[in-house]
């Protein structure tokens, strides 16, 4: 928390006459509720955006009957998923089967809480922000792995195994790209990264060549991290059917469905923070006005989300051994060299 008592605590203490620490706890609950709302609305919006963008690429109209441009289509989906029966295989591992979706949801929410939507709108500003996001999103692998194992279905077992290998190996290159950017900015705290970009301009410009290499590696590894084509071997439509979540129905499946889209949002949000100056307007035109940063942040993130959706509708899928050779033989060496290159650039002071 930047200031020790923010607007909400002041409001609670003065009007509602609560004691300091009670206001503190109530404020946490309020912020948590707001973020849950943001999470749900974001998930529904992204699903709708995915279906419209898919239709745009595939020469068809996409959902346009429910609401002006079909925006209530995903609301209908959510309403239906809420009221579906929760079936599952008989001999599933009951405890792990029920726990698995919550890993994925909780990690997506935790990562969402740290994102700097704008100078004032940031729930937590811990000083190892970026490192926190990567470590939290690596916990999501457990959710997918457990789903694959616990649902007693050979296809989901293969899907779970594939997700284990893929997510772990692609975290290496994302981690190394973050190390490279940390070398440039000198800090891991998100607000300080944004502060650095306020003076030196966006990192993709100030870090020129190594930053661009880092951005490309980050985009590849990020798409793999969120299990999207061309890396969607985990729930490969034509090989494994629905992969790890083939035995989940109703609300359990909805958790996985939403978490996948929110993960995509988080990955593109990280790309925006690390490379395109999170909530900074292009030439600092609206930086002064409070709360306007959110609009820039969302615009840039949705731009990158659009690019990731673009990948999905153009590229075919990798095979499992091609996927691993791409990571271990190409991406990791390049990102290591990138760190050294960035260090040299920073040491010689060639950054803008």
């Amino acid at each position, binding site marked *: 928390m930047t200031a020790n008592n923010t607007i909400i605590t002041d409001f609670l203490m003065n009007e509602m006459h609560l004691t300091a620490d009670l206001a503190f706890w109530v404020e946490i609950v309020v912020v948590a509720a707001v973020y849950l709302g943001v999470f749900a609305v974001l998930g529904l919006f992204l699903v709708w955006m995915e279906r419209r963008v*898919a239709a745009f*690429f*595939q*020469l*068809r109209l996409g959902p346009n009957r429910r609401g002006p441009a079909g925006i209530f289509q995903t609301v209908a989906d959510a309403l239906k998923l809420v009221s579906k029966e929760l079936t599952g295989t008989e001999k599933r591992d009951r405890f792990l089967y029920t726990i698995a979706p919550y890993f994925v949801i909780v990690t997506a929410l935790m990562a969402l809480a740290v994102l700097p939507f704008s100078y004032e709108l940031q729930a937590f500003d811990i000083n190892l922000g970026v490192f926190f996001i990567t470590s939290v999103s690596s916990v999501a692998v457990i959710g997918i792995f457990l789903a694959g194992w616990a649902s007693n279905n*050979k*296809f989901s077992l*293969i899907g779970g195994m594939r997700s284990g290998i893929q997510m772990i190996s692609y975290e290496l290159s994302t981690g190394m790209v973050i190390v490279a950017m940390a070398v440039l900015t000198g800090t891991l705290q998100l607000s300080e990264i944004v502060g650095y970009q306020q003076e030196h301009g966006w990192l993709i410009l100030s870090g020129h060549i190594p930053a661009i290499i880092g951005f490309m590696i980050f985009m590849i590894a990020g798409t793999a991290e969120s299990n999207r*084509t*061309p890396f*969607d*071997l985990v729930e*490969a*439509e*034509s*090989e*494994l*059917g629905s992969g790890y979540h083939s035995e989940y129905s109703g609300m359990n499946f909805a958790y996985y469905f939403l978490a996948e889209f929110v993960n995509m949002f988080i990955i593109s949000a990280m790309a925006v923070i690390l490379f395109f100056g999170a909530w900074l307007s292009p030439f600092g035109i609206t930086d002064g006005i409070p709360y306007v940063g959110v609009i820039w942040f969302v615009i840039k993130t949705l731009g990158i989300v659009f690019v990731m959706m673009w990948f*999905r*509708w*153009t*590229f*075919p*899928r*990798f*095979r*499992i*051994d*091609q996927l691993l050779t791409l990571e271990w033989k190409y991406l990791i060496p390049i990102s290591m060299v990138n760190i050294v290159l960035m260090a040299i650039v920073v040491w010689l002071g060639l950054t803008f």
Partner: protein
Amino acid sequence: MGNQQFLADKIRTEEYLLNMGPQHPATHGVMRMVLKLDGEEIRDVEPVMGYIHRSIEKMCEHVSYKQAIHLTDRLDYLSSHMNNEAVALLVEKAAGIEVNDRIKVIRTIMAELTRLASHQLWWAVMGMDTGALTTFFYGFRDRELINDIFEETCGSRLTMNYSLIGGVRYDLHENFVKRVKDFIAHFKKKLPEYDNLLSNNVIFRKRTEGIGILTKEQVIDFGMNGPTARASGFACDIRKKLPYSAYDKVDFQEILATEGDAFARYKVRILEMWESMSIIEQLIDNIPEGEHRVKTKAVIKLPEGEFLQRVETARGDLGVYVISDGKKNPYRLKFRSPSFANMHGLNTMSVGTKIADLVVNFSTIDVVVPDIDR
């Protein structure tokens, strides 16, 4: 590779069976493949068919020749016109019915249009099997134009029942020629689009080149045919070997490749689409005048003996073998199905490869399951 052997002894791995069951996106219908897997490596593929066995051969023994034609549509529904034509040609040759040139040219144009529609659907689903979902919609967009042509002339979009014994059911619609020319002009611009989207895509190339290699001897030994066999260099195009209808009056090139891997089978079908378009162009301008149907007796009885007619459908050469004892319905009617023959090569192709390769191999041999099960 010392430690590989060391690991192999230490870690006890076990093979397990996986059912790529009757309901699976990669099986294009209801075909079950029992895979013996070691991790993701396939040790053995054993197809279990019969989930759509509708006993068409038993039914053909109870129906007359004219009625048997309408059952052939449901065999390989993607080349339904060629199936009808096969039985019609057989009965005409056996009963000595002469058809004029107009009927031959119409049948050839319709056959080539069906081949184009079938290859478009194959390309659409091939892209989906490798993961590029947009190809599905590009392929079906162009297929709709062919459906319009068929609907206007033959009355139905998919199972046409258009060619009968002694000719075709209706004469050509007056704007048939215009529609076909528009379609050819449209598709000549769109086919290069297919190449840009999928054929030249580096991931697709990596997924298909060098996968599921079949040599020419293997293809002949397995009795395979159609574009799958021509990709390994075996010249088995019935339109060239035993020309029927108007194929002797058209000069076209039989597409042959030599590598025999999944990408060769893909390339053969794409080039065959160009050939089909050139055949249609050669025929569409000079369709001879004449009756669209020759007078035939109400009940056609074939003389005693046995007859064989072979036709090149989109999947390979379909053989119709009839043993007739002079009565109005055949004593025994056997359809030699091209997809059934192509299934023999699947096991050798995919032993030692991964599940993803099996999906690619299976969609490059372009199988229609009711054609297998009959």
